[in-house]
């Protein structure tokens, strides 16, 4: 397929269609509404299911119902809407059915604003819904990656009978870039041995539920989910490395924050600073092992995020205090400029860094002086 100019949100919608999306249920919210609008035309022309739900609660539970039949199904929303979906996400996880959810994140908390942000990292990665489960979370940084990861999200969701979230900030959702679409994949209904699609004279009845009234049985489910999670951790960690071979300073950033950091890294390299970038693609499972290895040879880390340092804590856990970890963030829908991150790199290359102060405190102190 040739490259075409695609808007992030519409690219995600078309990529899902080509990956075999059979049903979409959604609700309007900025900055993801183009996904809903695009699929409201596209799905009916292919004879597939599109429903604009009465709320995000309705949408995620329609997804839940369709997922129980074993078809490829998704919803999309933005931060406040995803909060409303958390109930359904927990049920989907507890019932072990595959589903895909796209979160085009905006500034928060509360109604916040409609500017790009990454404040939902903790909600996505460290739970959000109630109970003991972990979702697979993918974080694209470009329109092309949004396409590729949307396709991948359906495969991962089915492979592990799990919820797979694609989290992107409004930047990736709203911008247009040249990108290549995959070929249209014909819909093939897998003959799952768990799907509740009616006995149809062929088998015993099936039940899909997230209720395990006997604590011993619930514990078995929890352990099953945990063991599956360990398999996911062993097989599905994805990240991109840039200039890391000889890097003394390692930047860690996902999505747009990672992409902005890459511009800063390139400029710093031109200035002779040995800096590289690790951009996690799977923020859950988190690439802790590669950070662990980098911490053995790098001199310092810089975490850049469009939040108050949520992934920062996961990086610190992996670095285990061996080298200083610094933080630079912009919040509330503000996107950092490459120059801001470049200044941080230049500062780190010049002065001796201390590992004794919490990086968030040090960052706030620096911000206060600006």
């Amino acid at each position, binding site marked *: 397929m040739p490259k075409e100019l695609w808007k992030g949100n519409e690219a995600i919608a078309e990529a899902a269609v080509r990956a075999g999306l*059979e*049903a979409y*249920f959604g609700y309007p919210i900025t900055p993801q509404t183009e996904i809903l609008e695009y699929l409201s035309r596209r799905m009916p022309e292919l004879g597939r*299911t599109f*429903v604009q*739900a*009465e*709320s995000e*609660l*309705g*949408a995620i*539970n*329609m*997804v*839940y*119902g*369709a*997922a*129980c*039949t074993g*078809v490829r*199904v998704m919803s999309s929303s933005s931060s406040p809407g995803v909060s409303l979906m958390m*109930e*359904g996400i927990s*049920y989907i996880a507890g*019932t072990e059915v595959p589903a895909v959810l796209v979160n085009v994140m905006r500034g928060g908390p509360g109604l916040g604003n409609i500017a790009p942000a990454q404040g939902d990292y903790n909600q996505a990665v460290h739970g959000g819904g109630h109970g003991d489960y972990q979702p697979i979370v993918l974080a694209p940084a470009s329109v092309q990656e949004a396409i590729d990861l949307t396709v991948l999200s359906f495969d991962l969701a089915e492979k592990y009978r799990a919820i797979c979230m694609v989290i992107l900030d409004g930047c990736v959702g709203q911008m247009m870039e040249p990108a290549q679409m995959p070929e249209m994949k014909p819909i093939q209904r897998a003959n799952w041995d768990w799907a*509740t*699609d*009616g*006995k*149809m*004279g062929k088998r015993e*009845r*099936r*039940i*899909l*539920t*997230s*209720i395990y009234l006997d604590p011993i049985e619930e514990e078995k489910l929890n352990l099953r989910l945990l063991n599956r999670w360990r398999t996911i951790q062993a097989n599905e960690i994805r990240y991109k490395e840039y200039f890391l071979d000889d890097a003394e300073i390692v930047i860690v950033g996902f999505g747009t924050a990672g992409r902005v950091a890459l511009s800063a890294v390139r400029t710093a390299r031109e200035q002779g600073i040995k800096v590289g970038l690790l951009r996690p693609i799977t923020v859950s499972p988190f690439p802790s092992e590669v950070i662990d290895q980098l911490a053995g040879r790098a001199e310092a880390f810089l975490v850049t995020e469009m939040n108050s340092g949520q992934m920062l804590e996961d990086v610190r856990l992996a670095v285990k205090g061996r080298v200083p970890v610094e933080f630079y963030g912009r919040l509330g829908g503000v996107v950092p400029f490459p120059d801001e991150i470049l200044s941080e790199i230049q500062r780190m290359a010049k002065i001796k860094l201390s590992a004794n102060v919490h990086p968030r405190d040090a960052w706030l102190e620096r911000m206060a002086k600006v």
Partner: protein
Amino acid sequence: MATENLVYDRPEGFTDTPTHYCPGCTHGVAHRLVAEVLEDMGLIDKTIGVAPVGCAVFAYNYFDTDFVEAPHGRAPAMATGIKRVLPDRVVFTYQGDGDLASIGMGEIVHAAARGENLTVIFINNANYGMTGGQMAPTTLPGMKTTSSPNGRDVETQGYPIKVSEMLSTLEGVGYCVRRSLHDPKNIRLAKKAIRMAFETQVRGLGFSMVELLSTCPTNWGMTPVNSLKFVEEHMVPAFPLGDYKISEAIKQIKI
């Protein structure tokens, strides 16, 4: 020679499982009517049920059909998801009054408004049974519950919601009636209504719902017999039985 006539047996739509319902509760009757209708119509094999949160949370143990278990109030949304991708299957929800008329009011109204080809069995027993008898949207004025210990005060706790009347105003609804389970005659009428509701779905004539006035002897603090009398003397006047909407196409159906 004495002849033996089998007058009562487990319908094919049931599994061989004793129910968890309290003695005298009419959930068992409602379950049986649904199972009998599915058997009569030959639908057991292609039916997918959606259980609620509440006393009927374990409904999936009793019906010999595929079943899923919805979050509280969300059964009509889940059922929408299933029915839209499998339009040739029969999908029904079984919901209580707390589930359907309180936390799930958004889901039921919009499933009805969209005219989803679903069947909803709505059990109205005027309280939250599973959690121990709290006030529901259908609790009668003055009725004592564990969360309206002095009786439902309409000044501060509002009036009962008449769901069938409300949903019957929506264009998407094909069949919407209220029946009661307090005596054999009404049980027979209820079965006929459940049949018509599933006929509506099978023919693609829109959303169908049967509201069933039911007992809750345990939480009402009454004997089963007195509970049945309570339904007849207090519930029926507050929630009049009747056909709230039967579309023209459904009126033509002869069974």
